């Protein structure tokens, strides 16, 4: 990692932190959404680097949300603490499920994750005393009493956390392990990599990020519900963002989240029913024509024109 990089990140982060001082509430709310989806997109991409696809973002997002809200309501702990614990709960759950299911990979794993959101939704609906059942649970007050600056800083922290984790993964031995596993598991094993352990670990960490994001979201909007907290939006958009921006990188999902986050604001107003179709189209087009995404395609172009 070049020496100038961390400094650059710090500068950008500071700039981002100062946004509330010159941006209006509406713009901040849009940023909130962008940052939430950014964290989700990054977490999805990180697992993708090992060669596994998860369709379970919505599931762990919702678990984190419910865990955070229920912990907060039942123990009176500080909402921020409940968000962290909610993330850990999601991560722990992923550890259990992954340990059982990651023995078989590829489509078996992918479909199990696809079912997760549905499963969690059913469980939550069937424990009404605990979770408020089909109507969900409402918080009497959003976190920070709805102060949009603090809310924005919370979400920015969550997104920054995902970026940091993603970069750590990219610049440590984990990058070598994931690339090797993705390329050929048998060769990876023969190099001394404990493939199963890495995959379970990765699944748990990325799910924890999803849980933390979900916890933040739940506290910001002040409610959790089976339909809202496990909505397929939280799986569909991050995937479209990561594919659009470029897989296997930190900046791909970041760029994708910014672009699609802004786009989604417009689309929601223009086409209230069915605007999500755009994201499906983006995924299909990306797979068929641009597997590298924006960042990847630009990156390739720069390599060709640069000096080598």
């Amino acid at each position, binding site marked *: 990692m070049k020496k100038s990089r961390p400094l650059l990140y710090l500068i950008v982060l500071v700039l981002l932190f100062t946004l509330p001082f010159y941006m209006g509430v509406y713009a901040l709310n849009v940023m909130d959404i962008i940052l939430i989806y950014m964290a989700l997109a990054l977490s999805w991409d990180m697992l*993708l680097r090992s*060669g596994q*696809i998860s*369709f379970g973002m919505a599931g762990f997002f919702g678990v984190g949300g419910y865990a955070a809200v229920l912990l907060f309501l039942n123990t009176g702990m500080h909402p921020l603490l409940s968000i962290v614990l909610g993330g850990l709960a999601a991560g722990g759950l992923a550890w259990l*499920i992954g340990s*059982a*299911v990651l*023995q*078989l990979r*590829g*489509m*078996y794993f*992918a*479909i*199990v994750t*696809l*079912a997760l959101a*549905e*499963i969690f939704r*059913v*469980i939550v*609906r*069937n424990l009404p005393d605990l979770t408020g059942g089909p109507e969900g649970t409402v918080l009497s007050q959003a976190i920070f009493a709805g102060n949009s600056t603090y809310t924005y800083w919370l979400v920015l922290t969550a997104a920054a956390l995902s970026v940091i984790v993603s970069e750590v993964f990219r610049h440590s031995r984990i990058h070598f392990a994931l690339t090797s596993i993705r390329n050929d598991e048998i060769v990876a*094993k023969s190099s001394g990599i404990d493939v199963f352990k890495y995959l379970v670990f990765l699944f748990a960490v990325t799910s924890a990020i999803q849980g933390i994001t979900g916890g933040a979201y739940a506290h910001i909007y002040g409610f959790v519900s089976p339909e809202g907290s496990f909505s*397929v939006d939280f799986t*569909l958009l991050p*995937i*479209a963002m990561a*594919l659009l921006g470029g897989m296997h990188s930190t900046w791909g999902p970041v760029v994708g989240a910014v672009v699609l986050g802004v786009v989604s604001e417009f689309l929601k107003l223009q*086409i209230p*029913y*069915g*605007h*999500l*179709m755009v*994201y*499906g*189209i*983006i*995924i*299909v087009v990306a*797979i*068929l024509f641009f*597997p590298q995404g924006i960042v990847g395609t630009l990156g390739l172009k720069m390599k060709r024109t640069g000096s080598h």
Partner: protein
Amino acid sequence: MKAVIKNLRGGGLGEFPESAMNLVSKLKQSNYQISVITAVLVVILAFWKPHVLVEGLQRGCLYAVIALPMALILGIVGIINLAHGEYMMLGAYFAYWLNVYTGMDPLLAILPALAAFFLIGVASYRAIIKYVLGTPELNQLLLTFGLAMILEQLANLLWTSRPIKLPLPYVSSSATIGSFTFGTYEFIYVGAAILVLAGLLLFLKRTPTGQAALAVGQNPRGAKLVGIHVDRTYLLIFSLSIALIGALGAIFMTRHSIFPLVGAPFTMKSFCLIAMAGIGNLPGILWCSLILGLAENFVLSFRGYAGWADILFFALIVLVIMVRSRQREVK
């Protein structure tokens, strides 16, 4: 040509012929075990909870007739179609639309649905599916996921997310045996399951096109070498599967209320059933579907626990995965 195809099916081109035979006999054994278990359950339920037996049978057959076309695509074309449930959902809306504009009864709509969805299958294959056939599984999963989302949102756009149901008089027909009353309309699923399973088996084993398809499924390169047109086979099988599932959607529409997300759970359950039975084991899918249908209705029959029935398929597939990975000798 037939002899060559038979050779290919026996795995004559550099595979392990004995292992294929052993696998077949093992499958036959596991089918036998599963059918014995099923028979015992049936007898117990007939006396204890006849509702569960009848409704479980009907529901199980519904699952089977949805899963079979997916198994066909997975086994022969080798791609997992995450949009499978969505095609069924579109078939249901198609029948509804026909009913609204022409007054056609949805059951009659099966025929136009078969034709229309065959064409839709052709279009889907030509425009999208064939391009990911050689590519990594990841791409296929993502692509069909994106396709599923597109189809769901298309339905959302055209008909909104409000559930729709057609009031049809014949769906509430029932019969009574002694003091036990049950719905008889749902036996249509039983009929459909038997028809589709028998039809597919006959097609695959007795017709030259079907046998060629089997050969392609087991060994595409070998099949190409002996002159079987692989791309055309994939096109046919894919479109056939979509046609079947679209027609099924029409039947489904008669009895259930439909909404854009109605198909998604069926995709997951179908995959679960295929995984349980083993890819390529079509009759096994029927047995596993019956088990799932019976199990779900069994749970449903207990008042307080009814909501948990929808988790069963998940528990089953996790179990299957854990058992399978223990059986695997390759680490």
